[in-house]
């Protein structure tokens, strides 16, 4: 019958279709064909009434598109984020209308603020029911407008190929971000003359990257060449722009000490001699203090988040600021730049490298080393190598480093363990650090780790999670069970919502208000899902247990009992300048 849904046997590839006469297909089939042409291999999703026609079409695409059934749409979108972050590709998420779509909102906000490329497809009620408060109808477009780079509602199947093409182009080009396409049920079912799928590479009102202005590159080079104490701050822009090599060449020629934002971690190896550490509230001592001593500050693909700058009116006031960013709205948003270098750093960095004279800022670098020494003596040593008392989060990360040699992907949740893991995890490779930076979404790590593994199947993925955050999305253990994905889960259990407790201790006179959290038996919980697990209470057992976790074939949950009331230091208290960083 002509009206039958066309399956992969009957539908030729989109390329062939473009040259052959048009075929009649449903909107749902057109969507799946579009995904295949875009190179999508994995979808994270959850079916429901308004997206059923797409799931029905998916039944015939099971061999080509690996659909991972999650346990909650928030888990689905975080998995999509993890996938995008480790693979560099666009994460794809399916959800139904109403509650399915609203459950995506946290992940959209997270992806928006962390510039993660996603294409989310939501089902919507029939077009004739829009605005009637139909069953599972929500105004998804308006709810998601502030948290998407772009969104669009499709009510006619004819629009699908173009809408999906635009979605992928917008999600991945320029400064990446999440895109949501809301497709009404009638458009999913509707048959139309399908003429093939054409990827999009141009939208007239959209400029993914600004034109590089050579005069600014020259001015920047001049400033760098005359600087006595230059300092580089790098963010995720280096990773998103695949400019790690260009960045390395730039700092190695200029000899400039470089510090990273949480999302920039891993763009160059942790042990690179010019890598002086982490910026911001719980960053390293030297990078924070010396921000207020450098003469030229070179910010690359970072956005001067308030957790990085501390008090803005006391931030790097002595320095001339060079800001390289692909997003014009970021220049001068928080920190006034002396020279703005608008553009993709993959293009601007080589231009800059060519104009700078080789330099060796060894005396200036030595200053960082002095601060590192003080930090090691006063903070790091006790955190990483304690010999008595309860275990610290830092020593767990330190032991993990020894076993993975910095080759693993570290996915973290939000809170104390996140700051500790970011500070101490050794990262040899780019795209090895997956965390919720801008939004600080507790519950991110477990689903993101699932996606991270699908995005980088040949790498070890370790999710480091607190006892609080784990309980926000622990239902995704079911996803691990069913998909058989190999994720190492490490719960650092301090029996507290640690970061809030730390603030209550330091700033609210130890009035511990609702931070004392109880947990289930995590190992038994994992066991109920058929996931192997172990709990570690004693320091002597730690290394063996970590080894067992890493060597285990398949997923493994390791619960490590750590000190209840440890604080993450150094710390730039809120409202203070970066140079007022506290070591205790």
């Amino acid at each position, binding site marked *: 019958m002509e009206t039958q849904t066309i399956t992969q046997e009957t539908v030729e590839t989109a390329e062939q279709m473009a040259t052959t006469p048009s075929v009649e297909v449903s909107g749902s089939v057109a969507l799946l064909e579009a995904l295949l042409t875009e190179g999508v291999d994995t979808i994270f999703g959850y079916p429901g009434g308004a997206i059923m026609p797409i799931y029905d079409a998916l039944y015939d695409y099971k061999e080509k598109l690996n659909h991972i059934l999650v346990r909650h749409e928030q888990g689905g979108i975080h998995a999509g984020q993890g996938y995008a972050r480790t693979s560099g590709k666009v994460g794809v998420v399916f959800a139904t209308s109403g509650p399915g779509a609203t459950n995506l909102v946290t992940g959209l906000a997270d992806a928006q603020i962390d510039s993660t490329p996603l294409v989310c497809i939501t089902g919507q009620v029939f077009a004739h029911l829009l605005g009637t408060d139909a069953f599972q109808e929500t105004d998804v477009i308006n709810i998601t407008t502030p948290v998407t780079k772009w969104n669009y509602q499709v009510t006619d199947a004819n629009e699908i190929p173009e809408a999906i093409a635009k979605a992928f182009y917008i999600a991945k080009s320029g400064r990446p971000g999440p895109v949501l396409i809301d497709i009404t049920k009638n458009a999913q079912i509707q048959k139309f003359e399908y003429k093939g799928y054409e990827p999009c590479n141009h939208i007239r009102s959209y400029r993914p990257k600004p*034109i590089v202005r050579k005069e600014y590159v020259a001015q920047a080079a001049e400033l760098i060449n005359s600087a006595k104490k230059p300092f580089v701050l790098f963010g995720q822009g280096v990773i998103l722009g695949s400019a790690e090599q260009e960045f390395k060449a730039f700092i190695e020629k200029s000899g400039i000490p470089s510090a990273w934002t949480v999302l920039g971690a891993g763009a160059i190896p942790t042990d690179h001699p010019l890598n002086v550490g982490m910026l911001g509230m719980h960053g390293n001592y030297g990078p924070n203090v010396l921000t207020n001593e450098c003469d030229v500050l070179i910010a690359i693909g970072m956005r001067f988040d308030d957790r990085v700058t501390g008090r803005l009116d006391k931030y790097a006031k002595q320095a001339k600021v060079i800001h390289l960013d692909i997003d014009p709205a970021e220049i001068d948003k928080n920190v006034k730049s002396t020279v703005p270098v608008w553009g993709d750093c993959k293009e601007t960095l080589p231009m800059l490298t060519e104009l700078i004279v080789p330099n060796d800022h060894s005396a200036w670098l030595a200053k960082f080393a002095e601060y590192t020494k003080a930090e090691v003596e006063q903070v790091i040593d006790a955190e990483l190598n304690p010999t008595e008392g309860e275990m610290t989060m830092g020593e767990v990360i330190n032991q993990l480093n020894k076993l993975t040699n910095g080759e693993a992907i570290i996915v973290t949740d939000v809170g104390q363990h996140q700051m500790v893991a970011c500070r101490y995890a050794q990262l040899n490779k780019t795209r090895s650090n997956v965390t919720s930076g801008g939004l600080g979404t507790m519950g991110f790590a477990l689903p993101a780790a699932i996606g991270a593994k699908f995005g980088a199947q040949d790498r070890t993925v370790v999710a480091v999670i607190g006892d609080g955050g784990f309980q926000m999305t622990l239902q995704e253990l079911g996803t691990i069970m069913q998909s058989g994905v190999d994720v190492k889960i490490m719960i650092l259990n301090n029996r507290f919502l640690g970061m809030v407790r730390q603030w209550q201790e330091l700033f609210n006179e130890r009035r511990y208000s609702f931070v004392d959290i109880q947990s289930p038996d995590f190992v038994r919980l994992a066991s109920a899902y058929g996931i192997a697990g172990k709990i570690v209470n004693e320091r002597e057992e730690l290394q063996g247990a970590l080894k067992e976790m890493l060597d285990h074939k398949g997923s493994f949950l390791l619960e490590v009992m750590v000190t209840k009331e440890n604080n993450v230091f150094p710390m730039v208290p809120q409202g203070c300048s970066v140079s007022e960083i506290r070591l205790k």
Partner: protein
Amino acid sequence: MTIKMSDQQDIKQEFNITVYTENQIGLLNRIAIIFTRRKINIDSLNTSPSEIEKIHRFNIVINESEEVVRKISRQIEKQVEVLKVYYHTNEDVIWQELALYKVPTDVIAEKASVERLLRENGARAVVIRKDYTVFETTGHREETDALIKVLQPYGLIEFVRSARVAIIKDSEGFNSKLREFERLEPGEDVIENEYLNRGQKVFTM
């Protein structure tokens, strides 16, 4: 075409933001939330088709500092369906609002003084019916306000005022720039940069 850079960037004043966009459902919301997110009230909003087919023009008036207006303008321009954003102080634009006034015809007919007042206020009759007459005037807020005060004693039945429309004083205008945009492939259009001409305290568009 140039904009005078205000020396005191943090002083609040009225700014006229001009946004050229594609004609797209939902874009008004996307633009509006950039203001509401910062808790900024939009004092006046006009949106209508521009002289170029399929391109719409927004005129938005807010009372803010130039620094905030610049940041907002860049965040608006970042939206996928926005082509270009400009902002100007009141000094840089010629602006008008249109107002309609409905008054009882018998009063107007009887009272010659009303006719004189209308003439003095630059109003003209749009509709004259037995029961009422509709007058129209254009001008700045104070001017349209003034006529309300004048007509109130004569039984003003209804009043309505439009949003502000503004046109820039510079002789070049936006038209040539827009036509150029139509012609150009994206990327060839150079992004303006106020640093370029900082010496002259102007920035080139």
